[in-house]
């Protein structure tokens, strides 16, 4: 039997996305010996193209075919590559809203206040260059959305994004080919490597190793796409920081024998509802940034409205049409605005591990969130009609389009069963939630898994509840907080080096 490759480090980081890359970089800068493992491949700016059939299999887990099973099924996309989902996301950066922090504080997480988190946000915002868009990078679709919101009398806020003079090329979801989007691939990962952190891509971590009740490393394998497919890897580590996302992280912990009644539970998925508006004018949504504004006017009702330009292949996939109907509709691609909204979920699901070690996600949207999803579609449609749309295509089985503002307003009260709504998500969270109560929470205030010294969770799994906004900046700020706390307590985890 071939011998396993062995590595040694002080901090082993599993996952190179928003959480993992920040933790790795902070610890490396504090002088720790850091090794980052990433299951996906290592692609660079030059590798990114606009061709979905080439990029989706490379950058997305399961080729983009991941599903959260339930009523209805929710299609889930996450990145599987160095940089994780930060490579494929739209780059929206929002600090955790004060209303959310207050809710978390009421659940006992008193340390996560806006004031205490401010230094972490500032640090993250500096290292991913959070900024507003340059005006020339906005496209006509973004202008239409802003016009529509203003005509409805609804407040609209310009996004801040992690970007250096974004060109407005609208290729975010396939990796930024200009290098403007500051995913962790081009920010925290090179930052970490510049101070000595090592990176091994195409490694699947199979289980965490423990010694005397403490995390002691991992066992894994190089994937079949690597240069050494199937080669076993053992890493000996003083600390293990897991940042695989809210599906892979609990699955890894469960596979490794970590047991807690709440591990894998409290899955929140921030369901996303899409609406497509058809206009007479030439919108050419690909000419301009993916998303420049959001409408937070209904944030207290658990809704965010926005647009998000996508290529024709993805648009066509989303319509229920084929044959001549599909061709006739897609001839008007350049007249379309792709819009939608996010629902701050009040219900939750769970993640289990199958016999083959893979996670299985289960989530049934509850009645309240179903009503919110319908209202999101209705209100987005109203924005589009206010801006001049001739028709809005809806994500409802049996009601695929409406033609007037009046219909859009009546839609708010429509009784549509959950199973007839097409939902998707790119934000999952909560499956290893943090908090001071060991019985209700999987990890403590600084991400350490209760009962497992040296084992940390540094991703959205640790969120105590729904964050309501795009989660990337919250993930990064929490990870920054966890890592800096760990760095300040090095002596508790790492034996001093022999003189």
């Amino acid at each position: 039997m071939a011998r396993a490759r062995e590595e040694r480090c002080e901090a082993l980081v599993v996952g190179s996305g928003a959480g993992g890359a920040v933790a790795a970089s902070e610890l490396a800068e504090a002088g720790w010996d850091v090794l980052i493992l990433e299951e996906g491949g290592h692609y660079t700016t030059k590798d990114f193209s606009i061709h979905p059939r080439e990029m989706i299999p490379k950058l997305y887990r399961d080729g983009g075919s991941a599903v959260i099973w339930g009523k209805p099924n929710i299609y889930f996309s996450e990145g599987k590559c160095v940089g994780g989902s930060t490579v494929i996301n739209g780059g929206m950066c929002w600090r955790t809203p004060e209303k959310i922090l207050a809710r978390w504080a009421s659940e006992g997480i008193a340390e996560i206040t806006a004031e205490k988190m401010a230094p972490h946000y500032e640090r993250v915002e500096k290292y991913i260059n959070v900024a507003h868009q340059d005006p020339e990078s906005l496209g006509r679709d973004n202008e239409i959305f802003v016009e529509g919101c203003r005509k409805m009398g609804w407040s609209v806020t310009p996004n801040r994004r992690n970007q250096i003079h974004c060109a407005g090329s609208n290729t975010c979801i396939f990796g930024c080919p200009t290098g403007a989007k500051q995913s962790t691939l081009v920010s925290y990962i090179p930052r970490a490597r510049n101070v000595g952190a090592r990176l091994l891509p195409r490694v699947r971590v199979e289980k965490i190793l423990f010694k005397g009740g403490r995390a002691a490393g991992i066992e894994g394998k190089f994937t079949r796409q690597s240069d050494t497919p199937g080669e076993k890897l053992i890493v000996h580590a003083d600390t293990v920081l897991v940042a695989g996302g809210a599906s892979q992280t609990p699955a890894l912990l469960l596979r490794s024998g970590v047991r807690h009644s709440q591990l894998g539970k409290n899955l929140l998925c921030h369901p996303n509802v899409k609406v497509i508006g058809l206009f007479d004018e030439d919108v050419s949504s690909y000419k301009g940034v993916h998303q420049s504004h959001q409408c937070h006017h209904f944030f207290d009702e658990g809704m965010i409205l926005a647009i998000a330009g996508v290529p024709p292949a993805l648009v066509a996939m989303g319509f229920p049409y084929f044959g001549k109907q599909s061709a006739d509709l897609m001839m008007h691609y350049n007249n379309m605005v792709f819009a939608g909204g996010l629902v701050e979920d009040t219900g939750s699901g769970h993640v289990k591990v199958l016999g083959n070690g893979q996670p299985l996600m289960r989530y049934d949207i509850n009645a309240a969130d179903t009503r919110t999803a319908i209202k999101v579609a209705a209100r987005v449609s109203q924005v589009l009609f206010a801006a001049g749309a001739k028709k809005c295509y809806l994500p409802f089985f049996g009601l695929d389009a409406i033609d007037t503002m009046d219909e859009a307003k009546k839609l708010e009260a429509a009784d549509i069963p959950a199973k007839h709504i097409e939902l998707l998500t790119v934000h999952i969270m909560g499956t290893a939630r943090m908090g001071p109560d060991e019985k209700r929470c999987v990890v403590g205030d600084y991400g350490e898994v209760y009962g497992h010294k040296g084992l940390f969770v540094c991703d959205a799994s640790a969120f105590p509840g729904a964050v309501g906004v795009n989660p990337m900046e919250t993930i990064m700020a929490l990870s920054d907080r966890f890592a800096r706390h760990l760095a300040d307590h090095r002596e508790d985890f790492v034996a001093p080096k022999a003189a």
Partner: protein
Amino acid sequence: MKEHNLSPRARRVLHALVRTLIPRNAKINFPLEDDMQDFVDGYMDHFPSFLKFLFPLGLYFLEFGTWVFFFSWRRFSRLPAPDRERYIAGWAGSRFFLKRELIKGVRGLALLAFYSDPQVCEAIGYRHQEWIEFAKKRRLESYAEDIRQKEALIRGKSA
């Protein structure tokens, strides 16, 4: 080395399905069925294991389901084109979730392949690559020095 994920019989069913789904009108008329079929078959490499198992079963169910759901002794792949369309439309609008999901899944992948084709993109006026080149150039002409400084700050090298 295995050339295809699906058996020859399953590929015949898939080809018939793709021939039914392929978008076509006066301006969009490209014979991309073989490419679409190969793309869907190849994409199985990325499926989670349970889908790799269920997908061929779903195709066989589609093939022989005409006996029950369409009252025809002809298999799906042997139906005339208008009947295939009506049969698939019935599955796409079925109240049975698995029937809808099969058509949705194959339609999604087949159309992903179709609308990624450069000829199709040109026919619908989607000229993204041209735009990217323009936007890239504009960005560098306007902000090159600021970009260089900010990237150096972020990555930890001195400006």
